[in-house]
């Protein structure tokens, strides 16, 4: 695995000690050790992780405990490989993935000239999905061609909840929206009907019916996948609130 430059830098910066005031009630070092070894109750562990988000001495103690148990530095995540995996494995539990490939197959069968050019790369790769250049945050090395125009954390009305974005000419888009459980107790639930697949337009108004059972103030996570004319794909995510 190769260390993605962006994550490496984030980790290094997060490890920088902070001279800001730290929260009181730091956990005991023995408890931090137990946390690293998975010996704490889930609620206590979550409290401790929350604490580490703002307390650099405790975060350092955690890292020391982790390092003591590892022959080398913590294994980095390979974001690119993970993104590929996410794109491919997503079919298992995200309803949008499988219909997308079915749509591609149907479009390819129609042999529309323009789409044949777009899908040519895909076909030459033996049916493999096109490479993802940025997925769920991407790496710092790649700037996405697709960008949200609707600001993050925007409050969307139930009637006319419109999402807008910009991208390169000739790109097509898939959009999924999920209801996030902010307590973390439940998995995200898809809320939009699987209608926005392979579209060329750069906006989508979520049908009011899809939002009927979504509580006011709920957090909505939108994932927009753009299929670029050169055969690549990229995904960007953004959170919105429902009024």
């Amino acid at each position, binding site marked *: 695995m190769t260390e993605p430059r*962006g*994550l490496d*830098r984030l*980790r*290094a*910066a*997060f490890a*920088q*000690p*902070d*001279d*800001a005031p730290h929260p009181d009630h730091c956990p005991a*070092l023995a408890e931090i*050790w137990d946390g690293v*070894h*998975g010996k704490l109750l*889930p609620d206590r*562990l*979550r409290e401790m*992780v*929350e604490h*580490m*988000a*703002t307390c*650099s*001495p405790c*975060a*350092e*103690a*955690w*890292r*020391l405990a*982790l*390092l*003591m*148990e590892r022959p080398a*530095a*913590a*294994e*980095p*995540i390979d974001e690119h490989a*993970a*993104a590929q*995996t996410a794109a491919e494995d997503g079919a298992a539990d995200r309803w949008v993935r499988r219909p997308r490939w079915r749509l591609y197959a149907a479009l390819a069968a129609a042999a529309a000239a323009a789409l044949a050019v777009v899908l040519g790369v895909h076909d030459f790769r033996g049916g493999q999905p096109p490479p993802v250049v940025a997925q*769920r*945050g*991407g790496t*710092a090395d790649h700037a996405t061609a697709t960008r949200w125009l609707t600001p*993050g954390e925007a409050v969307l009305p139930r009637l006319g909840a419109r999402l807008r974005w910009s991208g390169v000419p000739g790109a097509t888009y898939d959009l999924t929206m999920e209801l*996030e*459980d*902010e*307590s*973390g107790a439940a*998995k995200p639930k898809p809320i939009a009907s699987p209608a926005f697949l392979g579209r060329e337009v750069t906006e989508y108004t979520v049908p009011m019916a899809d939002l009927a059972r979504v509580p006011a103030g709920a957090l909505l*996570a939108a994932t927009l996948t753009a299929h670029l004319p050169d055969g690549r794909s990229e995904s*960007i*995510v*953004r*959170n919105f609130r429902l009024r």
Partner: protein
Amino acid sequence: MPTDAQDPPTERRPSGGGALSHTPLTEGDYGRLRADLARVVAQVCPAWLASRADDLVQVVLIRVVEMQKKREGTGEFSAFYLRKAAHNALVDEIRRLRRRQEVPLNGEIGDAGPVATHPDPERHSAGRQLGRAIRDCLQTLVRPRRLAVVLNLQGHTVPEVGRLLRWTAKRAENLVYRGLADLRGCLERRGIAP
């Protein structure tokens, strides 16, 4: 750095873990602990402390042996407990040295010592600024994503994040990547390129 090369050959055992909680200690346990401490100190040692890395390892080992003596006859001092005690002593000692240096927690001033990795002040300052911004931005994330990202930034892999927080691998992956995307978005809004 000291190694355990001079220790008598012993059967190699995995380090740490609850499975060793009642295993009697051997010379090899201490040798491995010494080697692991040296490695950890070398990895995390701030520049001002680098020249004292060997001393730090020695002090920690002495403290661990003292702790073991105190516990003799009162209970088992297992390999797992040995490492736990060493971690406790190591963190205490690093914090004590920082206080004695009378430097803030950035700790990068004073007798810098011969450390090649010592960053230039501008880069170091930028790193600290990014660190503060990351901490601020983490507070804007929804809780599950914040938990996932904090553990990932601490060095845990995505599967480890899932195991610790008792999530499925898919859920952990989802929360880590979305959380990182949120974090980067927040940093970009603050004009910081992550």
